[in-house]
């Protein structure tokens, strides 16, 4: 009924291929393609807003890293390279699984799609788990900004068995800003991941029902865009937070 509404007495170049009308077709769209492209465009625009949202925080990071480089260096050294690198690899793998999942939806392989979505979720959960572990460690070392923040590890690294130059007390105080940015940036990132994981559970359930293996791939595609974007944020956070100054005694 809606294809009939697609007007025009003019010679219709579209006649030779069918307009697939999926059950999920929304009637204010003329064609399935229009709906799909509109949805994809909408998701890209939403990702732009996320870029600007994180952008403000990156600006703060850029400024304070340059003002307080020694403090940021020292703070960054407190982060665990093995855990951070592992997390990076895990998130990249999660993104890879998501991409294959999108392919599976496009070629209508329901089983593979469900498996890939589950793998994406599993890797995402592992990422969050490792992050939680890192946060816990920071809590125990009194490196969470606020009343309990303890700078002694930076003013007296030798006392903790760390082979680093000590910082002056005022510069050591600035490590608080580093850790704030660490928690804020990774926390915001983790929040986006948690939201994504929630959506993934819903998508897995729907994919299992077969919603996405008969030509209607938009939700999987668009979620894939979101998930990859979250991955990209981490690809920047990893070197900016973990790898500020890892070269041996400067």
């Amino acid at each position, binding site marked *: 009924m809606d294809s009939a509404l697609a007007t025009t007495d003019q010679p219709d170049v579209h006649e030779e291929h069918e307009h697939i009308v999926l059950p999920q077709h929304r009637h204010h769209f003329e064609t399935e393609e229009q709906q799909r492209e509109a949805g994809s465009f909408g998701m890209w625009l939403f990702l732009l807003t996320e870029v600007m949202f994180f952008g403000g925080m990156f600006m703060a990071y850029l400024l304070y890293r340059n003002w307080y480089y020694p403090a940021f260096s020292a703070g960054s050294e407190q982060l665990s390279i093995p855990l951070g690198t592992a997390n990076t690899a895990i998130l990249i793998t999660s993104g890879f699984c998501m991409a294959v999942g999108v392919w599976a939806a496009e070629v209508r392989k329901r089983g593979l799609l469900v498996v890939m979505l589950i793998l994406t979720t599993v890797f995402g959960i592992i990422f969050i788990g490792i992050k939680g572990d890192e946060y816990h460690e920071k809590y125990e070392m009194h490196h969470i900004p606020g009343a309990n923040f303890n700078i002694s590890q930076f003013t007296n690294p030798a006392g903790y068995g760390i082979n680093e130059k000590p910082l002056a007390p005022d510069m050591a105080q600035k490590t608080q800003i580093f850790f704030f940015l660490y928690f804020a940036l990774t926390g915001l990132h983790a929040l986006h991941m948690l939201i994504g994981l929630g959506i993934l559970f819903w998508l897995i359930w729907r994919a299992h029902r077969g919603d996405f293996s008969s030509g209607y791939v938009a939700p999987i595609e668009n979620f894939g865009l979101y998930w990859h974007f979250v991955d990209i944020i981490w690809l*920047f956070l990893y070197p900016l937070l973990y790898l500020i100054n890892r070269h041996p005694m400067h």
Partner: protein
Amino acid sequence: MATQEIHTDANDPTNVTNPEHSQHHIVTPLQYTYVFGTLLLFTGITLGVAFIDLKWANPVIALAIACFKASIVVLFFMHAAYQSRLIKMTIGAGLFLFLVLISMTLTDYISRAWGMW
């Protein structure tokens, strides 16, 4: 799916209603695997270079690698290379504005002589 012709008619010269009829490319898992491998490789490179003291070049290289990784994710995992010009311009616009935020704010900070830089 084969690439299809661009379908337009006199009343829809910019192909508003059927934008994806211009092309519908499906990226294969093999291509994804190449990208995956590249991402892991460059993660390793970033990590390795971080342990070498290159002074000012360290953050430059780290950011350059991060940008490269992000680009291949955007182009291949997110299919941007195969999307319409509109999508490509949208991505460009976002990047442009992010750079405006950073660079124009910096015009203030780098010209303030508070002994911080």
